[in-house]
């Protein structure tokens, strides 16, 4: 493995998600996969961007190693958030994984056109959630090299 990160350092995950049921499923899944993590939850697109840009009240926010982004969000929706992240010189290198209910080909294509790093349709059933997060862990935190994050 190319892991340059000590395995005890928790990864910072930003989850932009308004549905508390899916936030809970994310936590339940992360708890099952032996990955030290800190989960930061933003409940709408504006809050997600404020967190990434360290705007009030998120001045002390860490830079996430990975952002999980829902598409249907109140206020600014996921596509708009993605567009902002990927056109911002300081944010565009943060991997963004779209995690959404939609399996619509139109949504998939639009997300990749906006430079989503991957697109995942939310699975049904806790077992598949856990399997999904295990593969997210294996890929994003064990297989790939991520840009070094300053200030961690």
């Amino acid at each position: 493995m190319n892991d340059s990160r000590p395995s005890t350092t928790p990864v910072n995950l930003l989850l932009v998600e308004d549905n508390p049921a899916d936030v809970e499923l994310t936590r339940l899944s992360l708890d099952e996969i032996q990955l030290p993590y800190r989960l930061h939850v933003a409940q709408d697109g504006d809050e997600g961007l404020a967190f990434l840009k360290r705007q009030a009240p998120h001045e002390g926010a860490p830079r996430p190693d990975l952002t999980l982004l829902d598409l249907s969000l109140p206020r600014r929706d996921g596509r708009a958030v993605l567009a902002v992240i990927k056109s911002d010189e300081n944010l565009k290198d943060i991997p963004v994984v779209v995690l959404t209910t939609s399996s619509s080909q139109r949504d998939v294509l639009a997300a990749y056109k906006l430079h989503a790093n991957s697109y995942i349709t939310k699975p049904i059933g806790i077992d598949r959630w856990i399997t999904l997060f295990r593969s997210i862990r294996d890929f994003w935190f064990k297989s790939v090299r991520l840009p070094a994050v300053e200030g961690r």
Partner: protein
Amino acid sequence: MAELRHPDLVDPASLRSYLAAIVESSDDAIIGKDLDGIITSWNRGAERIYGYTATEMIGRSITLLTVPGQGEEIEVILTRIKNSERIEHYETKRRRRDGSIIDISLAVSPIKGDNDRIVGASAIGRDITEAKRAAAGLQRALDDLRRLTDELARSNSELQRFAHVASHDLQEPARTVATYCELLEHRCKGQLDEKAREWIGYAVAGARRMRTMVADTLEYSRLETRTRPLAPTDCAGPVVEALANLHLSVEESLAEVRVDPLPVVMANAPRLVQLFQNLIGNAIKYAGDTPPRVHISAERRDDEWVFSVRDNGIGIELGHREQIFDVFQRLHPQDRYPGTGIGLAICKRVVEQHRGRIWVESEPGNGSVFYFSLPIDAGA
């Protein structure tokens, strides 16, 4: 005039009265005027159209007939006449004696006297008020029709969008319910009694069913958007593809499928795959206790092809042969024949999109034959 051969017409006087009779009997207004617009002759047609008698009009100015606001119209016409111009199909308005305004189509020609000098004009006027009114009415009806068509197209596409969005958004809560019921079932097993587990089982089954129905609705709503134009399609291809998609159930059920030679039709091939797959799939699914035997064939009847998918299955009772083509209509309990009841509704939509019909003939216990027709298109 050189063509006139009638002996009476050789005499200039008879010729004049002959021509005058023609002018008099015309339905059109035929008016003579001098270059100042003073009326010199006025036929019966003019009397009828304008309501003035010849006695009233001869010697008076043609401008008596114009409508306020027409300004220089008469002057302009007279100027053109002086320049030897003919004016044809000139549409304008005139006022009748009773004050009513009528639409008139005018033809005005110069009248030449001695030495080819222009001395006046003859104006032939036709009352086109009724024709104009009819044309305007027709135009209004056309505009109304166009507006209605536009509205219908718009509301149709809005409805499609709605079905698409609604079914997408409905998947979200269904997924949450299914997942959390399952969590309850797995993680809280020890705390639950037999009844609670049974109830959760129903909730899980319900949520799962809802998800399938939402997915089916989505598939059905996708049918509404025409993805590609109809093209000549050899039906053998879609049938082979449908059978390939069904190969598991064909093998499991030991089904025997016979396919006769099939024609080339104007079709959207992927939709035909869907159609055949649903019909053949049903023939296998509703086979009863004997291994299914399915026979696919096509026959030309007048200007259409009639396809048939025949099975030896459980058949359909008489009272249900229409309703089975409706969305989510089912005839059997879930545990015997699972499904949401979208299959035949999809078949119906596909056939209708190809301008065909679908129907079923059946004898309970002796199998069913599903028929659908596709028009024979000149382009095929």
